[in-house]
């Protein structure tokens, strides 16, 4: 379960931040001798505010909104959140695997090369990408149309949607 769900072991400060963000105050910790396994006792503490608690079963949206809030999530927890960098690594690995398997783009380049091209020439590509995808040819940079303000992440996910 731990692997499948993206779990983690925690230090005491991490567990304390987590518990306090959910309204529990740690009062006692006992570790079994010779083991790192511990039992931590907590009692109800001050409730984190508003949105999260107002909902019986907080939805993903509610929780995400809470993440965006300033005071609710202690920095120790915020720091553990997913970052764009982690997402990029996952995407890159997927593409590398596809490249190693010999999957080629329409112009004969490896998928990886196409991804790199999109990464570095994203604005140009946005401007000249047709329904068939990249042409692979060199062209003079053109002003981007609709490509501005879009993050790298969006570009990568778009890549997958297009079935690249």
């Amino acid at each position, binding site marked *: 379960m731990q692997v499948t*769900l993206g779990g983690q072991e*925690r230090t005491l400060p991490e567990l304390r931040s*987590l518990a306090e963000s*959910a309204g529990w105050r740690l009062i006692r*910790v006992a570790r079994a001798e010779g083991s*790192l396994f511990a039992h931590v006792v907590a*009692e109800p503490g001050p409730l984190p505010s508003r949105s999260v608690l107002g909902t019986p079963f907080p939805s993903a949206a509610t929780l995400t909104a809470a993440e965006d809030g300033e005071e609710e999530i202690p920095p120790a927890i915020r720091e553990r959140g997913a970052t764009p960098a982690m997402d990029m690594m996952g995407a890159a690995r997927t593409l590398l695997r596809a490249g190693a398997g010999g999957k080629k783009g329409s112009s004969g380049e490896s998928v990886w090369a196409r991804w790199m091209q999109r990464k570095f020439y994203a604005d140009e590509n946005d401007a000249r990408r047709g329904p068939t995808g990249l042409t692979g040819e060199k062209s003079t940079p053109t002003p981007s149309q609709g490509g501005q303000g879009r993050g790298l992440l969006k570009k990568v996910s778009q890549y997958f949607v297009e079935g690249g």
Partner: protein
Amino acid sequence: MHDDNINPAVFLLRVVCHDWPDPLARRILLQLRRAANEGTTDKKPTYLVIGDHLLPYACTSAKASELKVEEDMEALRGARWPLLANLGAASANAYWMDMTVSHFPLTTVPCV
């Protein structure tokens, strides 16, 4: 939601929190917090007992802790110079467990 007629003494979460990333673990804890009885002068509150591995740091810190228990838990028993505060490889299993699971990108978990 908390029901005054039901007063649970303890909620026990044993090796549950470590299965979940923080936002989802928080969701579990919040649900229990809502169902908990906050206690009064003559009534004990509902306690929460979390059973999990607690990873000690390899070094003790000079910073004063906000929470007394953190000082007590900082170094493992018998771990004094020249031994590491976490006794190094002698307690490596829990760290391995963390490293084994931490390769998993959190972004693939819905709702994170």
